[in-house]
């Protein structure tokens, strides 16, 4: 059931979200670059050491023009980590990868530069932390440190829900992502509720009234008696809910 890697030095791959600045150029590009220079002169180093994504959604340019834009930006020390809204044909080797699924965050305000400073390093740090903190997107996981009682419902479409405790009969947990219950799952659990079939449900003791993943339901009567009362994980395989015990 579980594959064990014998090599202790396994590669760790983690997901992490960062707040990137998004630049959305408009035509004509020459004018836009003039405005960018103006911005940069008022706030030196604003783009230094920052992840920047270029959003070209709706921009009518070809591959050559896009490549030229990258070079112009590189000359200004603006390094693009990814590109959003470009047709695959516009991208190629030597170009940043396409990005999608970005979530909007608060606009970043560019602070007026107070005095001319030679030290671009420190200058670039100044506006960064405060401004970017505020623009951070909402957390994608919710941790509940107490039991979910009968009659209560926890609804979190943004992502995963972890319950450090039990989910009572007559209680429900609805998550956009996976559901983790470090206790008995006696109520209802619905994972992947906004259409995420990769979501799973984990619990220390399965006594659920109902489980659902991405809209596919299963009642406790439909489950193998061998799983009831056991630590179990549930996932979706096509249109059926699969379950197995976990250690």
């Amino acid at each position, binding site marked *: 059931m579980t594959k064990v890697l014998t090599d202790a030095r396994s590669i760790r791959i983690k997901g992490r979200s960062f707040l990137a600045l998004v630049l959305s150029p408009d035509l004509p590009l020459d004018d836009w670059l003039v405005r960018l220079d103006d911005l940069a002169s008022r706030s030196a180093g604003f783009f230094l050491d920052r992840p920047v994504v270029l959003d070209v959604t709706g921009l009518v340019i070809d591959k050559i023009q896009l490549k030229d834009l990258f070079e112009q930006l590189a000359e200004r020390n603006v390094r693009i980590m990814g590109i959003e809204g470009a047709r695959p044909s516009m991208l190629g080797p030597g170009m940043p990868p396409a990005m999608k699924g970005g979530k909007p965050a608060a606009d970043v305000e560019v602070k007026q530069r107070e005095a001319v400073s030679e030290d671009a390093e420190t200058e670039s740090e100044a506006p960064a932390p405060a401004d970017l903190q505020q623009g951070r997107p909402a957390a994608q996981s919710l941790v509940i440190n107490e*039991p979910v*009682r*009968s*009659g*209560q419902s926890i609804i979190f479409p943004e992502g995963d829900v972890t319950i450090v*405790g039990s989910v009572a009969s*007559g*209680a429900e947990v609805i998550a956009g992502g996976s559901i983790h219950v470090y206790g008995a799952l*006696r109520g209802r659990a619905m994972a992947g509720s906004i259409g995420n079939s990769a979501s799973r449900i984990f619990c220390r003791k399965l006594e659920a009234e109902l489980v659902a993943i991405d809209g596919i339901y299963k009642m406790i009567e439909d489950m193998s008696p061998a799983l009831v009362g056991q630590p179990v994980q549930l996932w979706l395989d096509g249109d059926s809910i699969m379950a197995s015990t976990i250690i």
Partner: protein
Amino acid sequence: MGKVIVVTSGKGGVGKTTSTAALGAALAQNGERVVVVDFDVGLRNLDLVMGAERRVVYDLVNVIQGEAKLTQALIRDKRLENLFLLPASQTRDKDNLTTEGVDRVITELKRVFDWVICDSPAGIERGATLAMRHADMAVVVTNPEVSSVRDSDRIIGLLDSKTLKAERGERMEKHLMLTRYDSVRAERGDMLKVDDVLEILSIPLVGIIPESSDVLRASNMGAPVTLADARCAPAMAYFEAARRLRGEQLPITIPGDKRGIFGKIFGRKAA
């Protein structure tokens, strides 16, 4: 300032009124000033269990509506001079209980008494939420059977959301009072086990009260069981529970446990 306890359950007939009277008398027997308040407007019972039914003149609703002063409505117990009852109205509608009125009465009672014990009506409606609103701690009365346990779970959820303490972001102290515990039926497996109930509700246990004819006998006499016969098993269990509510650490005994004295479970508590 006195402490406010709500005795609540969700499910009806599990022993809230019996427990309110028994705990109130037990605390008063220890010399503390106690008032028991009946919130069961329309179905009042506490006056009967306290043996005060013929002395009810004014009630909680009269006080809230400004038709009587609090001192006029309070009934002093015949046996214990520091035990009082604030009865509910039998005739009035429960809509007469206003939030502001209850606020005012409880605030006044807290100033005079060491303990204000509120006997909640069954259910999760307005009467029950008003009874729990001012509580500093809750005694959740539960019988060892599935429907009672589930209703208690529901009530615990309300205690953590619908009370002043919850609104202020504080934690409500909750205690599980397992009543009508029948050791013979437990032995046969006809009832939920103590551990099962604790595992489901995960709040600390304050007492296990055995099923006993002494309870009915006491209520027929019009006396809290702790006053009717202080030596009977349910009375002793209530005395111990009262000491735990005062903060004493006492081991809990499961009534009728074959292991007898060695069956005591120390520090039995749930997370």
